[in-house]
């Protein structure tokens, strides 16, 4: 085992009540550690994280002249800071401390006490061989830039932006669509109160636009992120609208004047149920109230031969057909990701006939159909203009399903009830809800379900097997037949209906992985952004200064998204108002004497922390930008780059300690 003569190690093993002691023989480990080189003192204790536990370290340091501390207990994520502070209070540099996680890595994951104890000994030996080569390091304090970037202008992003801006901070709100509002803007009513979605959302949207503290960058996407907590450098690409945003007043004269007399192109906002022109605004209350040109359908961009009637109709000279994407650079201290979700693509469940039968709709399409400003002015009519007399709403489409997404999308039961209510109101049709389980936890939610039960809506418990137009009797002819096992009466039923509504679930947005990589955060198995702790840090991520809110973190409804946005805003504000951040000194540095100037390291650095000094012919690492990823250390053929806390000798000693008794 590697030895450093001057190191005097104090070793402590924590029982963690029964958490560790039940599966690891802590006394045996303490006795074993006592015999290892450099170890001066070895103890086991019931709760090392308690005040007496921490004070014991300080006392021992004094009495036994310890200069290295190793604690074998839980996860460093939980208590590394506790013990570093205790070490520091005892008068030793906090980086002379090393933690061994024998709870998550030994006691909790094993069932054989003897083997778990053996493993704990190995892990302890590795830490002790490592700690003797630790060096004294200092944490660095860096000021936090008070400006905040919020990515995504749905209800989460809007709420967070207003909260933070109201606290007097500068907010940049970036939205990739031409308008903010997100999915909520498409909804007709909201459950369970049946508030008009637009009525409660649009005031918030215009508040965002008017707020002096908020800079709204719509039709823009973040294209690069650099820096670190408190000091992020962000590049935002503003996509060309071909309209000078500041000049447009939203009179829509250009839309009327478009060379296309009739709207011809699928209207995204109405889920393709209506048409729009190449120059358009997504919906009347779009924020900002600025039109844009779709260059894929505009005659000017396709042929160059359009008389540009739209531009001529504009009395403000707001048109600029030569606009190019513009990159805007921002400096912010914290970032909130509110990038939302995408609805499950119903075509992935082909047995429900979406795309094959024109009368099968997704729930979002129906939101537009029942909406007074929707494609039919709020009249629920089918594609053949007929009014449905019977409607089946199929729950859990793309949710709770091994074949598609395993998770419960949380909102579908409630919005299906809402749609059932609205459809009943609009059409007086017979409405059938096909559900697996009704999940209505939430304030007023169960009561809403109760209300629906009394409105004459039918509830059939069972996962629908198939929707088809295969009629086996006259009664079914010309209808869509929903085949389902009604598990409450224990038989297979065939329910003929005029219209089928697929309650599609929530899944991670298609660009979630790109966003995740760009902001250097993790995601869970299903692809939603991963919170730092599922219970205790639900809006924080493993990257300091980056917070998540809304459905990008997992399926959630409007109240939960707004609550989470508030929580994320509070976390960001807490960081901003603390004024500075302490940086882990795990940065890398270059030993100039060994640097040969090959520059391999420079492009490897994801944080652009390395520059080349032409005069000296050497590379240089900017410590403030280095995040300690270690990539350059591996890249350096000369071994001229050293990373604090991860020096070769420390790592090799740790491996040696792990492998060699």
């Amino acid at each position, binding site marked *: 085992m590697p030895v450093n003569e001057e190191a005097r190690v104090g070793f402590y093993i924590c029982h963690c009540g029964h958490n560790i002691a039940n599966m690891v023989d802590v006394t045996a480990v303490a006795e074993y550690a006592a015999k290892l080189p450099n170890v001066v003192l070895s103890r086991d204790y019931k709760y090392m994280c308690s005040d007496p536990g921490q004070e014991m370290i300080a006392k021992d340091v004094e009495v036994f002249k310890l200069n290295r501390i190793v604690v074998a207990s839980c996860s460093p994520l939980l208590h590394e800071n506790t013990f570093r502070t205790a070490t520091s209070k005892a008068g030793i540099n906090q980086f002379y401390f090393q933690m061994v996680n024998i709870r998550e890595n030994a006691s909790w994951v094993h069932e054989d006490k003897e083997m778990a104890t053996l493993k704990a000994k190995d892990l302890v030996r590795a830490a002790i061989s490592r700690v003797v080569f630790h060096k004294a390091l200092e944490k660095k304090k860096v000021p936090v830039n008070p400006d905040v970037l919020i990515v995504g202008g749905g209800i989460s992003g809007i709420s967070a932006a207003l909260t933070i801006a109201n606290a007097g901070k500068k907010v940049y709100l970036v939205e990739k669509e031409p308008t903010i509002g997100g999915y909520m803007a498409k909804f007709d009513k909201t459950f369970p109160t049946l508030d008009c979605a637009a009525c409660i959302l649009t005031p918030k949207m215009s508040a965002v636009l008017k707020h002096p503290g908020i800079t709204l960058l719509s039709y823009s996407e973040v294209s690069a992120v650099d820096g670190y907590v408190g000091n992020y450098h962000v590049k935002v690409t503003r996509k060309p609208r071909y309209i000078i945003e500041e000049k447009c007043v939203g009179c829509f004269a250009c839309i009327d004047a478009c060379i296309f007399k009739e709207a011809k192109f699928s209207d995204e906002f109405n889920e393709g149920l209506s048409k729009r022109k190449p120059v358009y605004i997504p919906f009347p209350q779009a924020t900002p109230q600025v039109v844009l040109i779709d260059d894929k359908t505009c005659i000017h961009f396709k042929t160059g031969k359009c008389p540009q009637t739209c531009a001529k109709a504009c009395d403000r000279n707001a048109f600029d057909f030569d606009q190019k994407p513009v990159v805007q650079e921002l400096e912010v201290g914290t970032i909130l990701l509110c990038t939302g979700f995408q609805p499950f693509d119903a075509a992935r469940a082909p047995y429900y006939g979406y795309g094959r039968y024109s009368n099968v709709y997704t729930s979002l399409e129906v939101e537009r159909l029942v909406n007074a400003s929707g494609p039919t002015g709020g009249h629920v009519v089918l594609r053949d203009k007929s009014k449905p007399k019977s409607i089946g709403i199929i729950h859990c489409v793309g949710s709770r399903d091994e074949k598609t997404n395993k998770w419960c999308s949380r909102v579908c039961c409630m919005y299906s009830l809402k749609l059932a209510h609205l459809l009943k109101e609009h059409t007086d049709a017979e409405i059938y809800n096909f559900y697996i389980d009704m999940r209505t936890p939430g304030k007023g939610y169960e009561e809403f379900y109760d209300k629906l039960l009394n409105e004459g809506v039918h509830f059939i418990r069972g996962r629908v097997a198939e929707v088809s137009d295969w009629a086996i009797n006259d009664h079914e002819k010309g209808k869509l037949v929903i085949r389902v096992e009604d598990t409450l009466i224990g038989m297979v039923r065939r329910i003929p209906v005029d219209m089928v509504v697929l309650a599609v679930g929530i899944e991670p947005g298609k660009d979630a992985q790109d966003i995740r990589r760009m902001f250097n955060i993790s995601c869970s198995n299903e692809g939603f952004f991963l919170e730092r702790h599922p219970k205790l840090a639900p809006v924080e991520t493993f990257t300091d200064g980056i917070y998540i809110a809304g459905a990008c973190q997992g399926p959630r409804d409007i109240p939960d998204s707004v609550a989470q946005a508030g929580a994320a805003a509070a976390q960001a504000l807490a960081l901003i108002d603390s004024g500075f951040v302490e940086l882990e000194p795990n940065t890398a540095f270059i030993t100039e004497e060994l640097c*040969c*100037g090959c520059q*391999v390291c420079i*492009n490897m650095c994801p944080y652009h922390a390395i520059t080349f000094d032409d005069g000296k012919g050497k590379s240089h690492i900017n410590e403030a930008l280095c995040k300690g990823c270690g990539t350059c250390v591996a890249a350096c*053929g000369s*071994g001229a780059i050293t990373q604090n806390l991860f020096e070769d000798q420390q790592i*090799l000693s740790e491996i040696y300690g792990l492998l060699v008794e």
Partner: protein
Amino acid sequence: MAQDKPKLKLAVYWGAACGGCCVSVLDVHEKLLDILAHADLVFWPIALDIKYKDVEEMPDGSIDITLFNGAVRNSENEHMAHVLRQKSKILIAYGSCAYLGGIPGLANFSTREELLRRVYEESESLDNPQKIHPQPSTEVSEGHLHIPSFYNDVLTLGQVVDVDYYIPGCPPQSERLVEVFMDIVSGKDLPPKGSVIGASIRVQCDECKRKKSDKKGITRFYRPWEVTDDGETCLNEQGILCMGPATRAGCGVRCVEGNAPCRGCYGPLDGIGDAGARILSAIASMLDGKEPEEISRATDSIVDPAGTFYRFSLPGSKLRRKVS
């Protein structure tokens, strides 16, 4: 040349070696006369007829400097390593083989059995129908015949005996040898025991005059005959696999000066435990492409990656050998 000091006693020995290191000693040309002015050669199998038993009978510590070249791969090499250690004041591992295992060390990618089978049973030019393998001891009419036993592992000199200094190179640059020797003769302060001497503390790129940029962007590798070298850009940037970025300088960047990529014979810098892993990660860092398929396309174009990256250093690396 006036002599006030007694002449030094010098020995040169070869273990598992090709002979190139001994030739490099001769390559000092007329400087050999300067060396001989200060030293007597007491043992050098390639040049002098001195038997092992003569060496064994020398008093311990009676040789001032021994240059031991070649790796240790059989019982004879190991025996002489111990003998020469005992007889020498300064034992120098001379050349890549003694230092890190060298080319013979690549045999550690095979086991002893695999090697013997290949050579004595499968070799294309072989006529050995009875599949006879060499035996350490054989009975013949004249009596017992002994040959050294062949080890499973090729070892570095340092893994067998205590070594004072290491001079890298395949072979070491002759000028470096003269410099080192003259330093010893003139009584200069010697570097700490265990040091690599006769070489730089930096890598090849430090001395290489080719143009280097931070845009390495390798999308595939070429063997030197597959592309036309522009004569001035970093070879790696042209996709020609060069070990320079992780290889100690000292040779005068001889290969690259001759428009051939560095093969890595001077080994890694101080403190680098595994030369192959180090050059591998340095080269991997130069690859262009983010998708696994793009990266595989580039790495798949490396011919014999293990043999390339560990060409001179396998026994002396952390990897050491293939686990059979």
